[in-house]
């Protein structure tokens, strides 16, 4: 099975990174979350109810819908926050006026049980890569324009996400009770998203990774 890969790209200001990432990640997770499964006898199960919540962005003229789950929101915010901190750290390291680029990946996977001593295999079936271009703006007028433009762009991205989702391509089969943890994240109390992981990578404008850039900075410093 080939993993389905989708790429989204947005350009935002530093303070908009959080909200832009939250908007897109939550929109994807809204479609990739179900209610909690309650298995009954004879292999049947019932599904809980997923609530939704409107979120208004503070730095972007945009509103989005997320799953009503504070636990899930905390996990996502933590990951997005780390991503944003790395982006800001890179910009600080490179100096003012330097644009940065990062990529946050939301990967949905299935676990495949392996025999001992091998560990379980994680097989991705859908990967969403969100490329973020962090720009520096000179004045408030540019920020206001950016606020509106980013809102429009995020709207387009939501439409793109919905379009991909509604192609109804591969989805893992509904698991039995014993295999539910191989398909869904059952750690949350109120909702049950498909197993996912969030990874990110930061690059500077030259396309090199943060580690390479930091290595070069340290070398230059020692050389002085």
């Amino acid at each position, binding site marked *: 099975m080939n993993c389905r890969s989708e790429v989204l790209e947005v350009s935002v200001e530093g303070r908009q990174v959080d909200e832009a990432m939250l908007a897109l990640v939550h929109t994807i997770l809204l479609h990739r979350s179900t209610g909690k499964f309650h298995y009954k006898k004879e292999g049947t199960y019932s599904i809980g109810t997923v*609530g939704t919540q409107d979120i208004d962005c503070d730095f972007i003229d945009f509103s989005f819908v997320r799953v009503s789950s504070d636990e899930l929101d905390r996990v996502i915010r933590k990951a997005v926050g780390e991503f944003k901190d790395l982006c800001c750290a890179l910009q600080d390291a490179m100096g003012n006026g330097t644009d940065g680029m990062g990529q946050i990946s939301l990967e949905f996977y299935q676990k495949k049980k392996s025999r001992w001593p091998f560990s379980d295999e994680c097989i991705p079936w859908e990967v969403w890569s969100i490329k973020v271009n962090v720009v520096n703006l000179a004045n408030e007028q540019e920020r206001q324009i950016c606020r509106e433009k980013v809102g429009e762009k995020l709207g387009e991205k939501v439409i793109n996400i919905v379009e991909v989702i509604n192609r109804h391509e591969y989805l893992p089969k509904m698991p039995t009770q014993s295999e539910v943890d191989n398909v869904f994240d059952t750690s949350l109390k109120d909702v049950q998203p498909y197993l996912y992981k969030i990874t990110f990578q930061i690059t500077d404008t030259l396309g090199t990774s943060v580690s390479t850039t930091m290595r070069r900075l340290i070398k230059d410093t020692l050389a002085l």
Partner: protein
Amino acid sequence: MDSDLSPQDKKDLDKFIKFFALKTVQVIVQARLGEKICTRSSSSPTGSDWFNLAIKDIPEVTHEAKKALAGQLPGIGRSMCVEISLKTSEGDSMELETWCLEMNEKCDKDIKVSYTVYNRLSLLLKSLLAITRVTPAYKLSRKQGHDYVILYRIYFGEVQLTGLGEGFQTVRVGVVGTPVGTITLSCAYRTNLAFMSTRQFERTAPIMGIIIDHFVDRNPNKYLYQPISDVCMPSFFIYIPSLILLYCSRLSYQPPVLVGAADFCHPSTLNAANPHQMGIPGKEGGVPQQVPVQPCHAAQAEHARASSCLPNDHVPAVPSGSGEDAEASSRSTDGKSVSPRDVMETTFTRKVGAFVNKPGTQVTTASLDLPFAAFAPRAYDIEENDPMVQPPESPATSSPLQGSLHSQGSGESGVPAQDDFVMVDFKPAFSKDDLLPMDLGTFYREFQNPPQLASLTIDVSSQSMAEDLDSLPEKLAVYEKNIDEFDAFVDTLQ
């Protein structure tokens, strides 16, 4: 196609489609309420949450949806549409978007109804939740209030998109294949949200007046849940951000007209043909009837109330024009029509403001209605009579008070010193005719013309000149005697 379906599957499918249609309407309408929606997730299934989504059912909306469906289901050639429109307090409306739930003939016979179709319909509802926050109407709906409200209309049958204007965009929310056809959910939304009627702007310059903002505690749901069976086909566009300017200009010359329970004014909207006309919602698909009316200051853009904004005999039609300017010009026109003689005849009845000593500045009784009328520029004043331009000769008087340029002599009303001036009773502003009525006036008159300084008179000056010359040597001697003292003083200054 239907014969391949088991009766149970057919029954289930019909039920799924029916409740999907009802939930679709709920999601769309609730997304246009203007409020943030929040529903709770529940780990335990309640059994009443269709498609495993917590979507509340607003009874009025469900009732309207069922009424529109009339026992039918969306099918091939039978689309269910939810039309979202904007309606101002004046009754003018504009279609913003149309959501269409359609079905085509493309069937997926292999799909499982009770599982796959159900889950995909659930996914489609989630997509609808996301997309409803993305279209332009969402931002408008979040800002609805006393200026405008968002309304919905549900209809069944053929899709009508003509009211969306030119260049409308379409976004497809998603599709779900079923054994009887493919369900498609899409949205067509207006992109051109406005243009201003330039004719209206030429006549009415927007005036930033005082905004009378009567806050009315209203339930936005109440506006949205008005059944709209008759839709006013829009014949004009409304520029939302400029409504505030129009609101001010209207307020400047029109008294607020209370209609219904509302107790505030609404901005008028523009009609390309006539700014004072509004379209009365006609029958569905009919041409709205243009009736010259005052702008309707209605709280709610309701069909019944909008129709009550008919020509009001008690409120005269005000010619279009800037409010205050029109008023001022009309009054100045009234002033112009009065001859100076007529004005003089009315002199003794007018009230003179403080520090007014120019009897030639006359105002009509009509113009006294103007605030601070005495200081208003009077067009009928001619320069010949204007003492500021040609000061009158000082009248000869035995009083020690010398005449100034504006002197009128002392005391009471008397004969005019010149033909151009009329002596009037000088009544200072804020002085009352009681106790000591003339003290202030007497004081003012006396000190208005102070006596000439003695040193400035010719005799005195000439006299002092001679004396100065004579006394000069003596003064010089005294200064030389005290020269040491003067030098010491100068040293202290250094």
